[in-house]
């Protein structure tokens, strides 16, 4: 492999000079979209509704890792990591935690909302009480969800000091808003503390980490939280999976449950989704055999009281003694659970989509959702009825871009690929949400500014695969 010709490389200079989209821009009519669509055999496919995007974060701030949710009134709620002002070196958060360490990341969690009829997002506010309290790695993203009562729930990774060892730790925190996002309650720590000190195990790192958090919230406000936990970690560097739930809208949480022993990839963010009245799914990466990073899904049919055994979603075994940093993504449509995960053993490495009946988790053989991509990653999915939206970032023959595909039949077929026209900008980390009106909302990071837009699925047209 020769060095890549300069002409093919992402032009970061141009990216920085690209005018920020400001409050509004057009999208979904670019050359890449047309070109990508041409790669597929299309039967009456219709392009999704062209949409506009708005900025959720300020252009002079470093915003990363967006997450979004929509309340029943149609308000879009967005959160993201704020890593400081553009040009600001070394985040000033050293007062948080028990000393400097190798997993240091001081950030804030910002929140803003986009009320229907408004031109754009509100001024953002900080969720964490003190600056720098958020453990700001894009690969351990915050999560936001809304319930049917109008409450907004947030989980995020936070910096702290173990009361038992005095050493730096990272923990999972929960906060909620009862008034549509105008105020958020004092965050509570979800995980218990440990007197184990693992800092030497990872060469001056955290003494404990309970992060890479997931959350799913039912319409009635049952909150399910999960995180990867280093309690019990040994030289093999495998995490446990913990679970904690609230059945009263986040007023109180039950005791934490050690759901899986130390056989989980410690840096692969978990995902969770509810389906129906009492169905709950959680997806993680189990480490099997000789460091095989195996994506799995577990199902609870009784609202988190019991869980079935993990089911593998399939794909080429990916062996890696390293840090995959690969989250899982899921969505539900009636009777079906959908999984979208990166597999580094594929050639080229990329996202594999698989689906299974909810009742038995027998996943069909996975397929590449973006076969033409040189590399694809950072999946996000959501479903409305039988309509499924999958979004991710990928590179084809130029800079990384946001791509997405719809399925109108519960994942049996996918419509042609679509790409956001982000040009030479540095983009990634899409997140998706749904509205009661049957629309999808897409957020992503673009030159460290969070962008949000609506996506409407086409009403007809199915592409052959």
């Amino acid at each position, binding site marked *: *492999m*020769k*060095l*890549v010709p300069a002409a*093919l*490389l*992402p032009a*970061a*200079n141009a*990216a*920085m000079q690209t005018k920020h989209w400001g409050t509004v821009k057009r999208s979904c009519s670019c050359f890449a979209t047309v070109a990508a669509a041409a790669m597929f055999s299309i039967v009456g496919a219709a392009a999704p509704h062209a949409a506009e995007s708005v900025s959720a974060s300020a252009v002079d701030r*470093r915003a990363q890792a967006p997450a979004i949710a929509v309340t029943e009134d149609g308000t879009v709620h967005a959160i993201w990591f704020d*890593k*400081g002002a*553009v*040009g*600001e*070196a*070394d*985040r000033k958060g050293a007062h948080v935690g028990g000393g*400097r360490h*190798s*997993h*240091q*990341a001081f950030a804030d969690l910002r929140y803003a909302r986009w009320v229907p009829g408004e031109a754009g997002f509100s001024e953002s506010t900080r969720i964490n009480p003190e600056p720098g309290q958020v453990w700001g*790695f894009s690969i351990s993203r915050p999560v936001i969800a809304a319930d049917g009562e109008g409450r907004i729930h947030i989980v995020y990774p936070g910096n702290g000091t173990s009361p038992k060892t005095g050493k730096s730790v990272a923990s999972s925190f929960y906060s909620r808003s009862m008034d549509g996002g105008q105020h958020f309650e004092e965050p509570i720590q979800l995980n218990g503390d440990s007197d184990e000190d693992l800092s030497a*195990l*990872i*060469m*001056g*790192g955290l003494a404990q980490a309970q992060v890479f958090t997931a959350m799913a919230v039912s319409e009635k406000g049952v909150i399910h939280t999960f995180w990867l936990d280093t309690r019990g970690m040994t030289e093999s*560097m495998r995490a446990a999976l913990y679970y904690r739930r609230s059945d009263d809208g986040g007023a109180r949480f039950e005791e934490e449950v050690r759901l899986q022993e130390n056989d989980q990839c410690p840096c692969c963010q978990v995902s969770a989704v509810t389906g129906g009245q009492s169905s709950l799914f959680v997806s993680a990466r189990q480490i099997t055999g000789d*460091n095989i990073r195996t994506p799995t899904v577990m199902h609870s049919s009784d609202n988190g009281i019991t869980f079935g055994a993990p089911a593998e979603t399939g794909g080429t075994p990916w*062996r*890696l*003694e*390293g*840090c*995959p*940093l*690969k989250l899982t993504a899921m969505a539900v449509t009636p009777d079906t659970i959908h999984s979208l995960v*990166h597999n*580094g053993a594929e050639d*080229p*490495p990329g996202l594999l989509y698989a689906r299974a009946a909810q009742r038995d988790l027998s996943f069909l053989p996975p397929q590449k959702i973006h076969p033409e991509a*040189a*590399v694809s*990653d950072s999946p996000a999915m959501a479903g409305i009825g039988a309509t499924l939206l999958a979004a991710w970032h990928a*590179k084809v023959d130029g800079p*990384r871009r946001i791509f997405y595909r719809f399925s109108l039949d519960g994942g049996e077929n996918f419509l042609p690929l679509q790409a956001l026209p982000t040009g030479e900008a*540095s983009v*990634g980390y899409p997140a998706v949400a749904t509205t009661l009106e049957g629309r999808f909302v897409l957020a992503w990071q673009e*030159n*460290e500014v969070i962008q949000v837009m609506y996506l409407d699925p086409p009403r007809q047209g199915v592409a052959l695969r």
Partner: protein
Amino acid sequence: MMRPIAWLLAALTLAVASAGLASGQHDPGILVPMDRDTLRAELSASEGRVVLVNLWATWCTPCLREIPDLLALKTELPASDFRLLAISMDDAYSEGWVTEFKVKHFPTLVSFINAELDTDTLVSVIDPVWNETLPTSYIFNRDGEVVKKVQGKKPTEFFREQLVAAGL
């Protein structure tokens, strides 16, 4: 593209270390910010030698466990034939902290630190399909061609074999 602070850091650092750049000899006590042009220049200047580019980060434990093995190889092999080109994928905004960490744990490691807006932008110079897992290493032959991509921590003997296969 570097942010203003990164440009400033780069300018200051380059002023100090310019004599050593592109030769693998810059002061191990500093982390030199690396953008795409710097990476290209370093690779170009290294042609004629077998080069092992190693991507690491302070938060990547397997990376940290691998670095002593790579340093042993560097000590073992003649500098005229082999170059270890280490690049930290930590946030360039944390350059001060990462330098402190490196000096404490790997005082002899000569390393750069990514100065682009994201890691993919820099690594794309070598590998447009990098999937952002760490550690990742690339072995270049004497003609400046990538002949091996290695992901995950590997034993010293594995790297030695690959370097020999690359023409060492």
